């Protein structure tokens, strides 16, 4: 049922599993915070919920980079690094 990347096999599946868990945790936490921000008069919960929501994909990307480096899958690890650098440069330039 899972993606079987050539040259990756079980390694490719482990990256997908870790990325899925990080996104699942981010979605769950952000959802709880956003809901509590709506149900209670606590605007900070909404603010933190949005930050968690935006941070989850970035964290997943970082985890994927680390896993691909440990697997010595340099082309994909390089792609992760480029994406992280562009995201970081964007945040830096906007700030």
């Amino acid at each position, binding site marked *: 049922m899972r*993606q079987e990347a*050539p040259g990756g096999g079980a390694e490719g599946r482990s990256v997908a599993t870790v990325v899925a868990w990080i*996104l699942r945790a981010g979605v769950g936490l952000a959802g709880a915070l956003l809901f509590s921000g709506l149900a209670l008069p606590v605007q900070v919960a909404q603010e933190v919920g949005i930050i968690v929501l935006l941070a989850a994909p970035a964290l997943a990307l970082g985890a994927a980079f680390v896993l691909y480096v440990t697997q010595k899958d340099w082309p994909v690890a390089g792609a992760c690094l480029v994406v992280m650098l562009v995201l970081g440069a964007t945040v830096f330039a906007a700030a």
Partner: protein
Amino acid sequence: MPFLSLLMGVPIHEAVAVSLVAVVATSSSSTVGFLSRGLVNLRLGLTLETTMTFGAALGGFASVAFDQEALSALFAVLLGFMALSLFRRTEGPGSADASASGGGAPAGRLSGRFFDQHLGSHVSYSVARVPAGLVISLVAGGMSGLLGIGGGVVNVPAMTMLMGVPMKAAAATSSFMIGLTAVAGATVYYLHDLVDPAVAAPVALGALLGAAGGARLSSRLSGTVLRRVLSAVLILLAMQMALAAFGVRLR
């Protein structure tokens, strides 16, 4: 975003910002399900993401300098393109390179293989024309940052028709990519104080729940019916946006 801008009167820059937050929510929620079903080609997604994120960052900065009428006109054109793209899209794997089989994955580092529940068998595919895909991802990223859309309307047809990726894998991989892309644009807007939590929170919460439900529903409903209904809605919204571009607001 059109609903926020046209029906709720949210300024278009704030509507774009909230829309990007909603895109991240939708992507994260749906990608969890797609990953568990093995539909996301992470290697391909991360490769294309190198140019898509760059385009989104450029678009995010450029949008601050655009006026509302110009953005509305651009969005109207994009909605029309989306409607035509959705209406013309065909069923099935959509690629001569894709094949249903029980064998292993084809050669190539970006190729992939997944189990198609509708076909009841594994689908193996290889990826062609990666350089062209990188260029199109740059354009898709620019649209995402500029207009607050996911970029998938450009990426999915490109991956399917140009690169030979089956529709299900393309849609799932694009879903993963647009979350990363939207993070760049949304962060720019957030740092410019254009994300209003009071508006973004309910929209994001709805997107989280809707994406989770939509991912489950998508396997039960006919793709053709869904695409045609969505095409009709997009055409109506494109007309409303075109009017807004000329200063006519329907509220």
